[in-house]
């Protein structure tokens, strides 16, 4: 299928700069891969072939003329279909927005376009970035490239599938309760949820104003750093955007982790009902970090139940508020699972919402206190490998509360990345967590671990066809 050997973002950038790789060939390869894998993975809602070809030709001409914009110029990417791209539909994977054509780019889209990236298409999501995989929508749910019978995780489901399958080296996701990190974890990619406020949310369909975060899914940590370099920065038209300086995210990437203090939240594994092989993989990751010279010690997070109560209360209240009118007037247009999960917000009281916001402050302070003795935390992000797609929980109340929403509550930056494989061949994942706005440290630790552990050298079989 491929004339190009699945370059990472960084490798593609270096080869384009050296004149060894053509943006047109790279885009054609991504388009061929997207089309060929679509029947197996359903990763895309729309493949934007003509737009991509025109952009690739433009990039090639600019680069040949000595006007290379930077390390992302001429490289394909994908957008979860809740991000606006002018001239294209933003459906949010919903019947409600089938005719919703964006007139303006989301701030993040605009930044990636300005960096010269080539949009290959809009990617599957859970409806409005909530609910779950659903079979009663106009578009099918995405499937896991490691085994298409299995769930990708969500809600950035198509983003996880497209990166893991080697269609694009960067896909944008959004994360309100784990929606970047869960598909990254189940699909064996890197998923970076930046600090709340670090990356603009303007032009991205909202789910929960207080928790929504946007960020990249990539194959490597270095690629996450390169992506964040372009995405991070103040957006005065996003009221949740922080006016904070943006450091060079690749400057310290290769500094190693000797002497850094890693707090392993090992008790959280039991609190979060983590399965044995995922638990063992996390223990092994902690040992690898120690072997690299880090000081690894156990630390304790507040009880998961407190984080879950906060996350569910805030998320259900705000998402119900956003969708109340459509739930009243057109409930039949939503997938059943989306509709029922959104309706739960009607049953949260004002008192509970305010209490959750108060408790959120307390929990954030407690996690902040852990960073007085640690540079980075290591925690679980998934309980075990991806379940079978048709067996995913589709009830209104999830049987198992996601582990990932802990750091949506506190706003800390965090990153899921592979830490092994289960006996059934599906990826396992570790989560690193940093201080607010210290994504650079997070990336440094993640890169050192990734290079030592070597899990990224294994790709899904269908990605190497």
């Amino acid at each position: 299928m491929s004339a190009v050997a699945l370059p990472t973002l960084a490798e593609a950038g270096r080869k384009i700069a050296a004149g060894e790789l053509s943006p047109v060939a790279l885009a054609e390869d991504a388009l061929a891969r997207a089309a060929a894998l679509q029947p197996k993975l359903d990763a895309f809602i729309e493949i934007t072939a003509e737009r991509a070809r025109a952009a690739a030709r433009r990039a090639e001409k600019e680069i040949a003329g000595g006007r290379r914009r930077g390390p992302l110029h001429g490289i394909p990417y994908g957008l979860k279909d809740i991000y606006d791209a002018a001239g294209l539909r933003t459906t949010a994977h919903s019947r409600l927005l089938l005719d919703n054509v964006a007139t303006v780019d989301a701030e993040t889209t605009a930044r990636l376009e300005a960096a010269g990236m080539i949009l290959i298409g809009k990617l599957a999501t859970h409806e409005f970035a909530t609910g779950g995989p659903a079979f009663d929508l106009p578009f099918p749910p995405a499937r896991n490239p490691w085994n298409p019978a299995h769930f990708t995780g969500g809600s950035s489901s198509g983003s996880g599938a497209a990166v893991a399958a080697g269609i694009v080296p960067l896909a944008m996701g959004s994360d309100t309760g784990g929606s970047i990190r869960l598909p990254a974890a189940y699909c064996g990619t890197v998923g970076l949820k930046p600090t709340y406020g670090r990356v603009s949310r303007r032009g991205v369909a909202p789910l929960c104003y207080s928790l929504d975060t946007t960020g990249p899914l990539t194959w490597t940590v270095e690629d996450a750093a390169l992506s964040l370099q372009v995405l991070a920065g103040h957006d005065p038209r996003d009221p949740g955007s922080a006016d904070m300086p943006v450091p060079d995210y690749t400057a310290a990437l290769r500094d190693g982790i000797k002497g850094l203090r890693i707090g392993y939240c090992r008790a959280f594994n039991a609190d979060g009902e983590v399965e044995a092989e995922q638990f063992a993989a996390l223990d092994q990751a902690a040992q690898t970090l120690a072997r690299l010279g880090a000081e690894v010690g156990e630390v304790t997070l507040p009880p998961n139940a407190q984080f879950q109560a906060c996350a569910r209360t805030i998320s259900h209240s705000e998402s119900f508020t956003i969708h109340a009118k459509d739930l009243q007037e057109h409930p039949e247009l939503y997938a059943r699972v989306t509709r029922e999960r959104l309706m739960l917000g009607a049953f949260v009281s004002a008192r509970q919402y305010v209490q959750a916001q108060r408790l959120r402050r307390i929990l954030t302070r407690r996690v902040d206190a852990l960073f007085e003795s640690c540079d980075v935390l290591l925690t679980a992000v998934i309980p075990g490998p991806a379940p079978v797609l048709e067996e995913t929980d589709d009830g209104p109340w999830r049987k198992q509360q996601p582990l990932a929403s802990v750091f949506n509550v506190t706003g800390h930056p965090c990153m899921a990345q592979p830490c092994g494989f289960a006996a059934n061949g599906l990826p396992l994942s570790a989560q690193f967590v940093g201080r607010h706005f210290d994504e650079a440290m997070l990336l440094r630790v993640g890169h050192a671990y990734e290079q030592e552990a070597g899990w990224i050298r294994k790709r899904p079989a269908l990605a190497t066809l």
Partner: protein
Amino acid sequence: MADDQNSDFAAILRRNGLKIPEERREIMRDAVEKMQALLRVLDDPLAYEDEPAALPRYDLGAKR
């Protein structure tokens, strides 16, 4: 589910203009019950100074 909880459930649906098909009502009632069980931790009293308010960013207008 007790009668008063049933009527609370129905009242909240009515007040919010929501309809649930008959065959899903029991499942939704059960979901609400489970959610309320998780949220019980929010009943724990907090200190007066544990407040959620944040300063609105009035300076942004000038930067637009």
